[in-house]
């Protein structure tokens, strides 16, 4: 394989891993509530920015990470309690507007609480690039991929082997039946939002050494994460990851071989084409509509 192609693939892997983590957050919330949380990108932003603040205040990196993830989870819980729960019977479009409003609100608060500058986080294990067959890879990318794999495994265990996880899955399949079985839908929603927010924050912290973080870093990442989640099929965890990686690869190869200016256009065109052929995404479940 030529060194150039290898480099493009590795770049695609780096970017794809980032999108995959964000997409997972979308998938979890959608699974539980059938709501697309357009504020997901903001959780990514909070993770990165909060960690920067804690580090600036003198705390060591691991503690800062834990606190930042906790802070984001708290915001996620508040969002669910104050915004989603009161509107749980609203239409899809209304819920979309609510979460978009939430993302605008969070961004506004972030620009006030922090500043409008761009911030960096130190790479976890240094910046020395790893050479691989003529191409190079950043160690941080391995962190992103590694953590993503661990998170996926943990989520699988959580959803399939624990009571709370099974409850969340039950609600996503059939809310009424789950309620009849004694599942508290409210609690399920809270947990999913908190979990999703924590995940988003973790993603933000992992990628900040590569992409930097700022008050509005969530906009583009949220959009691409949403696209990846849709591509993979809404509600499918593995689908989200595959969708993210695929999106990253398409962008990188598009930039390398076609036109770097239009790589985003290729990515979206391919997503559109994929949706036309597979209206529920790559791994999405076929839904049936009750009349």
């Amino acid at each position: 394989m030529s060194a150039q192609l290898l480099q493009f693939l590795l770049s695609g892997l780096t970017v794809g891993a980032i999108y995959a983590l964000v997409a997972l957050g979308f998938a979890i919330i959608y699974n539980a509530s059938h709501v697309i949380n357009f504020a997901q990108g903001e959780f990514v932003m909070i993770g990165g920015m909060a960690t920067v603040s804690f580090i600036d205040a003198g705390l060591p990196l691991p503690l800062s990470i834990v606190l930042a993830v906790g802070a984001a989870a708290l915001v996620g819980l508040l969002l669910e309690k104050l915004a989603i729960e009161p509107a749980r019977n609203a239409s899809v479009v209304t819920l979309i507007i609510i979460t978009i409003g939430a993302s605008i609100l969070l961004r506004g608060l972030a620009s006030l609480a922090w500043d409008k500058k761009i911030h960096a986080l130190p790479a976890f294990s240094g910046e020395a690039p790893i050479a691989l067959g003529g191409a190079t890879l950043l160690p941080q990318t391995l962190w992103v991929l590694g953590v993503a794999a661990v998170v996926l495994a943990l989520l699988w265990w959580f959803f399939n082997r624990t009571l709370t996880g099974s409850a969340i899955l039950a609600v996503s399949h059939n809310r009424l039946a789950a309620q009849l079985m004694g599942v508290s839908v409210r609690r399920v929603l809270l947990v999913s939002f908190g979990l999703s927010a924590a995940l988003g924050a973790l993603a933000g912290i992992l990628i900040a050494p590569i992409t930097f973080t700022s008050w509005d870093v969530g906009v583009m990442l949220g959009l691409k994460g949403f696209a990846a989640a849709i591509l993979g099929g809404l509600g499918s965890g593995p689908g989200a990851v595959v969708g993210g990686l695929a999106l990253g690869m398409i962008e990188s190869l598009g930039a390398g071989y076609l036109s770097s200016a239009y790589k985003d256009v290729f990515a979206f065109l391919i997503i559109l084409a994929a949706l036309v052929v597979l209206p529920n995404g790559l791994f999405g479940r076929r839904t049936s509509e009750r009349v």
Partner: protein
Amino acid sequence: MVLRLALLALAATLGFSVQAQPIRIGAFLAVTGPAAFLGDPEQKTLELYVEKTNAAGGVLGRKLELVSYDSAGDAEKARTYARRLIEQDRVDVIVGGSTTGETMAVVPLAEAAGMPFISLAGAVVIVEPVKKWVFKTPHTDRMACEKIFVDMRARGATRAALISGSGGFDKSMRAECLKVAGKHGVSIVADETYGAGDTDMTAQLTKIKNAAGVQAVLNAGFGQGPAIVTKNYRQLGIAVPLYQSHGVASKQFVKLAGDAAEGVRLPAAALLVAETLPDADAQKKVVVDYKRAYEARFRQEVSTFGGHAYDGLMLALEAMRRAGSTEKAKVRDALESIRGYMGTAGAVNMSAQDHMGLDLTAFRMLEVRQGDWQLVKPGH
């Protein structure tokens, strides 16, 4: 007698009220949004210096009043706010327009209303062709290109690669560089671009690395893109010199790019190396004063963009002093006749054909060494 006293009193109060009427400085800046790091320091600078000027007694015996709006980098908002400044707030002069898009949308309004407008945006199209009522304070992107090409030639490089972002500044500078490269004997052998929120440019840089005979690379951009480009540059081990644009002339860029920024050169205003300028440098006092005042008040690193706002405001006030009034036509004429004014960007010599007034000496070539700026001495 009583009547005369009353009339006198009336005239005095009228005269006094005219005098007491503040001079209104209008501004529309991208304080939030994607160009926030342009508009935020600009807004702060205008507020600070309006305050300082008022503390020192104002201009023409009148206090200054700042009326500013946040256009968030959106040209249509900029237009609506500019119209509001002209029609509703009735300002005397407008200092604003953080980005070229916002500025160009407002130009027809300023021209039609006869409102002196000092823009804080970079593209050369703002003052070329010259418009009667529109001036600008920042260096043009064309000047940045020329300064870089001159330095490239001095180091023996004649074949260069371009990499730029998709924003207005990036594209404008890229177009200008392509235009003037030939004039300086530099040929562009590769031309790559990246998107606004992109997180990895190794694909584009790999193409550049493999392009035949590349001797130097120019990154025209601002925001986090150039920082990522710089890091990727080192990651890929590209050996030829890297030049950035004045769009990232800030300590923030150096901090973000970290060790990767070592050896990167860019053209910038003397403001960045204010304290290390030789005492004989004509610009030293202005930039050191501004830097100290800004950093003392806002506890933030000084920014060249804030410096442009400072120059804009000072030029406007200077023009009012010379004209002896705030009558728009007189102020405009006075602005056009300013010569030898020293600002944070450099020496300003306006004329009827040149509504920016800076020349290539206003830009200094800087190099990043150990996380700090260093002036590049000519011939190095």
